[in-house]
């Protein structure tokens, strides 16, 4: 944020409507024009919502909060959504407490009655690991094919194209979809719009089908159109019916932020 005098406490005052007009305009200007400032304001707002849901706001602040954040059905629905996310995380954390075992010493100090089931479990793990290694080989082959397909020198004629905006852009078309049968030799070409100011020399994309654990990563994707779009080519046989999610980030991992895209294969 450009202005160092604006700290979290001040932003909280702003969000609760406690600042004067001049200060409000200054923060709104930053919010509209400075992405870092925007992230920070939204972060402080997120903290404020949490404090409200946890009941830690003072009476006066709670009333101010309610008058700003719980007036319309839409606002109340958003609060309930945040509450449900928090409730889920707390319940999940409570149901899986951290392990208190003391590593190998604890394992070797076990009585035989426990050692047998552990040995059986170990055998299962070995078998599962063997299966995983064999699947991994298939996985690597697919990633290799993706890398070749997306290499700058690779040219395929008339791929099926689709332009995708990040899902975090409200109003972006979240229903992007292919609704025709693709033949085995076809290539689907996605044009991923990069809306962040910061640009990178190359990107990596990770694609996965929603509901599947398997994901595929394609690296060294070069941006085009002055860094505003990244082209990702996918072979049709990889895409079965379902929703796909793509995470795009800088190849060197230096980017704090990544973008997420979605599209659906209808057939």
């Amino acid at each position, binding site marked *: 944020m450009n202005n160092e005098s604006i700290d979290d406490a001040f932003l909280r005052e702003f969000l609760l409507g406690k600042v004067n007009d001049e200060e409000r305009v200054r923060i709104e200007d930053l919010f509209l024009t400075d992405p870092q400032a925007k992230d920070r304001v939204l972060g402080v707002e997120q903290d404020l919502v949490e404090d409200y849901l946890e009941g830690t706001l003072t009476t006066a602040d709670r009333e101010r909060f309610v008058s700003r954040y719980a007036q319309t059905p839409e606002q109340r629905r958003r609060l309930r959504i945040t509450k449900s996310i*928090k409730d889920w*995380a707390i319940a999940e954390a409570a149901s899986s407490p951290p392990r208190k075992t003391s590593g190998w010493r604890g394992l070797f100090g076990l009585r035989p009655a426990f050692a047998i089931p552990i040995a059986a479990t170990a055998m299962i793990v070995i078998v599962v690991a063997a299966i995983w290694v064999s699947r991994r080989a298939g996985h690597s082959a697919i990633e290799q094919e993706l890398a070749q397909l997306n290499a700058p020198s690779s040219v395929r004629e008339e791929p099926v194209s689709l332009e995708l905006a990040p899902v975090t852009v409200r109003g972006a078309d979240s229903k992007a979809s292919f609704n025709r049968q693709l033949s085995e030799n076809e290539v689907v070409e996605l044009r991923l719009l990069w809306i962040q100011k910061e640009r990178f020399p190359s990107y990596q994309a990770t694609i996965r089908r*929603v509901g599947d654990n398997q994901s595929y990563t394609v690296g060294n994707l070069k941006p085009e159109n002055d860094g505003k779009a990244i082209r990702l080519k996918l072979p049709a046989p990889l895409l079965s019916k379902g929703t796909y*999610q793509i995470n795009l980030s800088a190849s060197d991992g230096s980017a704090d932020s990544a973008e997420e895209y979605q599209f659906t294969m209808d057939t």
Partner: protein
Amino acid sequence: MARDFAVPPESFDEILAWFNPDREMAAAMYVQLRHDLAKTFRWRQCSDPEGMTDEVFDRVARKIRDVRPTYTGDPRLYFRAVANNLVKENFKKIKTQIALEDVDLTKQQISEADAKDAEIEECLHGCLQELSSDKRELILAYYAKEKQAKIDHRRELAERFGISVETLRVRTHRICLSLETCIERRLRRNGQRR
């Protein structure tokens, strides 16, 4: 808010050109500015943020031919100034009508009044499946503690990832935003089916 349709259609193109000579970039800025302006209207307790955002764009569209050649600086600030004037004009309309005690979540009135918590939870579980496991785990860890305990917990979490607490907050906020969008989409879809 009723829209004024006497806006020349070519003005929209001119607005985009004002944002950025590149049409794609301009379109992204347009979408983002609409979202951000609506947010500022919400902060100011306006009852129809989206309608007021439309009105801002309509007003700018009507004046853009005169304004653009002489205006210097970020055009988004011009939109913000128009938005500010609009809020002042509509001051009476933005006064809240609902008594505070009617909407206070902590008094458990929301879940009773809207009775949609179970549906939201169902949508949340579906949307969590759409998240990558990394993101799911990050959200789980971030929200695992409450009140005072969460401060130390998040500091430790940020250290573990080698990032600042602020960056951690930004990351989780983005994930939450995508979760929220997903839940709203599912709720809308469920509503359409009924």
